[in-house]
């Protein structure tokens, strides 16, 4: 997955797309796209006119009519190619995922406990299969018994194995991944052909692709522009008769095809497919095109603190010795007490100490004291009588006070400072005497506050969800730059927060993995479930992130925005192009009978025929020229809506007016040279 090619055109895909371009000429398929459908009708009319002009002279020369026919046919083919190449790319992407789950033998566990070998394609919802070390998991499902380490690199590209177990929030397994150790029983949760991936493939292939709301609205607008130009062209005939100017059918159809928004009309579906494809490249499976589009509208983003904003667990950041204690003594004690400590916190203490000096080694025969809920401390007893303890403030204080040792004031102050800074203080004692404090802090991911800043500029509010107490939550929220936080969050808090935001009209996105999260995922406008999450969570959300990466939401929002922007800018470009086309074709239509109208031939095109040919050629070749842009998407810049509009209006609006003047003139020079 990760090593997919980023090349826009693979030769295999181009070949399929070329073939598809012709298959898509079928009018039953074309009618889905009203703009290009009318071009197809125009092409057919030109075919008839071409045949007619073989024996008659009144519709212009045979060669000219055939040329127009050929260019119109190319226009339709180019538009079909755009759609086909987008589909081919999406399909290739999905296929590479699907390959991982081709025919795998499955050990199906029957009711009576016997094991039967079946092929993965024969598995039905409700079946239970078993997998042990070295087996490839045949299909998606939920672990109902056991725990296993699993290599998911086939799906996520991440080589580190993950642990999946029954009952928790990490009970889901994906077909194609490999069990590295232990044995699990898995319940099949989907019918063959109905997994998320299958749904996604169907979406990309067009069979079940439904137009998104914005796409529908845009299609309506484009259809009405097309109708305006139908009116313009139909009424032109009596107008021209009045002016005693015969207009050839070729000229009329050329004018029509040039005016209707073929550029955006031809690229519209390609843009939509490319949006889903981009999501897939980001390793996100979307259940509908609408979800991607909605992502661009998101106002509020709910993010879990752990793993998204902070790196997994808390880390030691500081040693604070008591007044009469040498720092080295404190650190030595800390290390000794943590050497046997396997918790992430314990490891981080050793790591921090390692940056100060060479680590001491625990004397042989040392006895480590495990953390218990009662003592709320852990430590080590060495054979030479050293008793080191580290733990929560009050438990260590009790140890010291019981032994008649004071609790130093400056240490107590430090404890308070750490707590108010969102950190966790661990007090260290040696032989019941207080040595100092270790400060544990959440480590905020590097670059995360820049990403939040970027989101803020997009108009997206970020909300941190954490189980921490409000004080800690506030501190981290401020440090990371999120706009709001939910502290001591219970699953229903998320739900309530989402509902409250939705009530004031905002769209909310969230990511979750647990069964607890399912209602909130369903409630959110965009719910992204982690692939490792429970089946319930995956069903509830409208996207699944294969990487289980919580920051993915940010990318998804940008993909959604990019999708809309690409549609908007290409529409603008397409309409703006018409200005130049008018200046090419209208003088060409009337120049012969109304010489005065030569004055509006501001491009000084060579002849009426060359002017019309140039305009139609420009109109056709602009489609393939813009395919890369349609597939990659117009870049989104979080510079504020008005600035973005200015920028895009300048590039695609003003640029769209100017570009065809240059393009048509250049083509005309070439055409005039050939004639």
């Amino acid at each position: 997955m990760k090593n997919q090619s980023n090349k826009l055109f693979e030769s295999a895909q181009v070949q399929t797309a070329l073939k598809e371009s012709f298959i898509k000429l079928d009018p039953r398929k074309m009618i889905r796209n009203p703009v290009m459908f009318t071009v197809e009708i125009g092409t057919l009319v030109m075919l008839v006119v071409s045949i007619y002009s073989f024996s008659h002279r009144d519709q212009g020369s045979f060669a000219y009519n055939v040329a127009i026919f050929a260019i119109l046919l190319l226009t339709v083919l180019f538009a079909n190619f755009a759609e086909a190449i987008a589909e081919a790319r999406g399909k290739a992407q999905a296929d590479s995922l699907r390959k991982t789950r081709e025919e795998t033998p499955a050990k199906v566990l029957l009711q009576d406990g016997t094991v039967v070998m079946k092929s993965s394609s024969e598995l039905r919802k409700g079946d239970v299969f078993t997998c042990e070390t070295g087996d490839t998991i045949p299909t998606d499902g939920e672990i109902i018994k056991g725990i296993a380490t699993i290599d998911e690199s086939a799906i996520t590209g991440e080589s580190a194995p993950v642990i999946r177990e029954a009952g928790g929030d990490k009970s889901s397994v994906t077909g194609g991944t490999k069990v590295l150790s232990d044995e699990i029983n898995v319940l099949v949760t989907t019918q063959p052909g109905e997994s998320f991936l299958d749904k996604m493939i169907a979406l990309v292939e067009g069979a079940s692709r439904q137009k998104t709301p914005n796409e529908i609205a845009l299609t309506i607008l484009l259809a009405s522009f097309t109708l305006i130009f139908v009116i313009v062209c139909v009424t032109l005939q009596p107008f021209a008769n009045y002016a005693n100017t015969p207009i050839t059918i070729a000229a009329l159809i050329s004018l029509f095809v040039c005016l209707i928004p073929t550029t955006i009309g031809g690229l519209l579906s390609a843009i939509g497919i490319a949006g889903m494809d981009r999501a897939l490249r980001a390793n996100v499976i979307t259940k509908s095109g609408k979800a991607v589009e909605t992502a661009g509208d998101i106002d509020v983003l709910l993010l879990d603190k752990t793993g998204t904003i902070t790196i997994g667990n808390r880390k030691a950041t500081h040693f604070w010795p008591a007044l009469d204690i040498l720092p080295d003594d404190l650190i030595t004690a800390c290390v000794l007490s943590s050497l046997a400590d396997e918790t992430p916190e314990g490891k981080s203490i050793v790591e921090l100490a390692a940056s100060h000096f060479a680590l001491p080694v625990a004397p042989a025969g040392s006895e480590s004291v495990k953390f218990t809920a009662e003592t709320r401390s852990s430590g080590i007893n060495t054979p030479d009588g050293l008793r080191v303890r580290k733990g929560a403030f009050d438990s260590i204080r009790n140890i010291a006070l019981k032994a008649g040792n004071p609790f130093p004031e400056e240490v107590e102050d430090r404890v308070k400072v750490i707590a108010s800074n969102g950190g966790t203080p661990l007090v260290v004692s040696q032989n019941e005497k207080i040595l100092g404090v270790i400060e544990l802090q959440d480590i905020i991911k590097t670059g995360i506050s820049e990403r939040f800043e970027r989101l803020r500029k997009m108009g997206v509010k970020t909300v941190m969800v954490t189980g921490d107490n409000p004080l800690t939550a506030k501190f981290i929220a401020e440090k990371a730059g999120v706009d709001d936080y939910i502290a001591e969050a219970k699953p229903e808090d998320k739900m309530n927060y989402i509902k409250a935001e939705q009530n004031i009209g905002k769209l909310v996105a969230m990511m979750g993995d647990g069964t607890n999260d399912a209602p909130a995922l369903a409630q959110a406008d965009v719910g992204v479930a982690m692939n490792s999450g429970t089946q319930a969570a995956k069903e509830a959300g409208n996207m699944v992130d294969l990487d289980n990466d919580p920051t993915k939401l940010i990318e998804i929002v940008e993909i959604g925005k990019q999708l809309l922007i690409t549609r908007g800018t290409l529409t603008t470009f397409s309409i703006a192009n018409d200005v130049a086309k008018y200046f090419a074709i209208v003088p060409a239509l009337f120049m012969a009978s109304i010489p005065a109208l030569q004055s509006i031939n501001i491009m000084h095109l060579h002849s009426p025929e060359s002017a019309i040919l140039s305009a139609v050629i420009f109109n056709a070749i602009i489609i393939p020229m813009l395919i890369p842009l349609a597939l990659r998407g117009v870049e989104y810049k979080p510079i504020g809506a008005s600035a973005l509009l200015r920028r895009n209006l300048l590039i695609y609006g003003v640029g769209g007016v100017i570009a065809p003047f240059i393009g048509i003139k250049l083509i005309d020079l070439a055409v005039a040279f050939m004639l």
Partner: protein
Amino acid sequence: MNTELLGIIASFAITLLIAIPLGRYLAKMYAGEKTWLDFLKPIETGLFKLGGIKPNEPMNWKQFLKAMITINILWLVYGFFVLIYQDKLPLNPDGNAGQTADTAFNTIISFVVNCNLQHYSGETGATYLTQHFIFMFLHFVSAATGMACAVAVFKAFRDKTTTDMGNFWNLFVKSITRLLLPLSIVVSLILTFNGTPSSYAGKDKFISLQGDTVNVSRGPAAQMIAIKHLGTNGGGWFGANSAHPLENPNYLTNMTEIIAQCIIPIAMVIAFGYFIRRKKLGWVIFGVMTVGVFMLMIPTISSELGGNPLIAKMGVSQLTGAMEGKEVRFGPTATAYWSTLTTVISTGSVNGMHDSTMALTGLWQLLAMMINSFYGGCGVGVLNYFIYLIIAVFISGLMVGRTPEFLGHKVEAREVKIAALITLLSPFLIMSGAALSSYIFMAHPNIDWAVKPSTWLNNPGYHGFSEMLYEYTSSNANNGSGFEGLGDGNIFWNVTTGIVMILGRFLPIIGPVAIAGLLAQKKYIPESAGTLKTDTLTFGVMTFAVIIVLNALSYFPALALGPLAEHFSMLK
């Protein structure tokens, strides 16, 4: 600077000085806040009691439109029959005949829809009764209809989410009692004191220096001329409209009339901003409209002051500009100023003959009516602009990467569909009308009609085409001015323009009200940094571009065959 230019600059300045405070007043008045005209309340209450109307009953957009359409149908039926039988009814001192069915059809539609195309001449085709109780009456109510519908759209965006578009009857009556009636009294007094007749006596006569007896039509004209401008109607008392010396006696009345027709359309735009508590939006719209007006006005004035190149070729000096068809008492600058404003605003009254203006001026006049929303008619100008706005919102919303929204409401397929249909309507009506008439003129010139198509055009050729195009454009825009020289007083033109007028009026009112109603029902989305603000210069430019590009694309070929071909041929 020359006095002619100073005259129009002063006119525009006074227009703004009146229109801006008037806009603030309208916002307050329609919102039901306290104003100094509250003493009129008992009159309104009486009217509502008489009609059995509960003025504070909320209406949703469908109920609102139903009320509007019902009363308009009633006026159509009433007016149609009175016009046909006007010869048998009182107040007909000149003994004028009743209108034929097709003329009455055209006339009543044109007055109900605030167009006033006038295929009859006031002196001979109407009586004092019909002038008063149909034409003048409809001048008031058609203007008030447009304003009430505009306020319904305002109301949709005043609150976050609502289904209440206001009460049609309430807004309608208040538009008359609190605005049109008081202003009309002031304007008609100014006109009366400057010589516009306002008596009920019949024709006067005098013997000219040559010894001929000349009959001079008169009548209670000043009252009608006041509301004809204030309500952007344009239907004059006399056939020659405001070029007639009794309808528009001097430069002061000329200024009064041109100011009168601009103040309400401008005030409505300002009122929009104040009413929805987004003043800046009102100002941005006003700015876009004003830039548009100047872009049409400046070339018009310059081409009129430049004179006719064909006359110049003959060696005739044209120091005062092109004077054909203009009144000496106004001069080309004031006439050009008027011709721009009367076409951007849907008044359609004229103080000179548009048919005689330069070819390029004709182009600007046509374009002004095709756009029909740079200020635009009473109330309907804002409504027309609203359609362009929705299209601009949709395209630019996509361009900034969000589902398009206007003032916190998502613009989705249904709204786009309505806006697209309304956008489509104008080119459809104008172009198919002109195509039909061109076709009949060419293919059936001698068809057996009372007026043969071959005799329709005084000036066949490019100018004749412009005349036909102008007639349909003016009908669709509910403007009512004409490129005279077209034989339009016959069944073909009466019926076709009648249909164009009625569709060109009601659909562009129904569309915006429906869109506003649908939007207002939707959940309100609070603004964020990603929201596209519609009260910015950038968005104003976007809307302007949408207006220009849409119209240029729709009409370029037709305009090329009419005014452009005429202009460039003249230069050869």
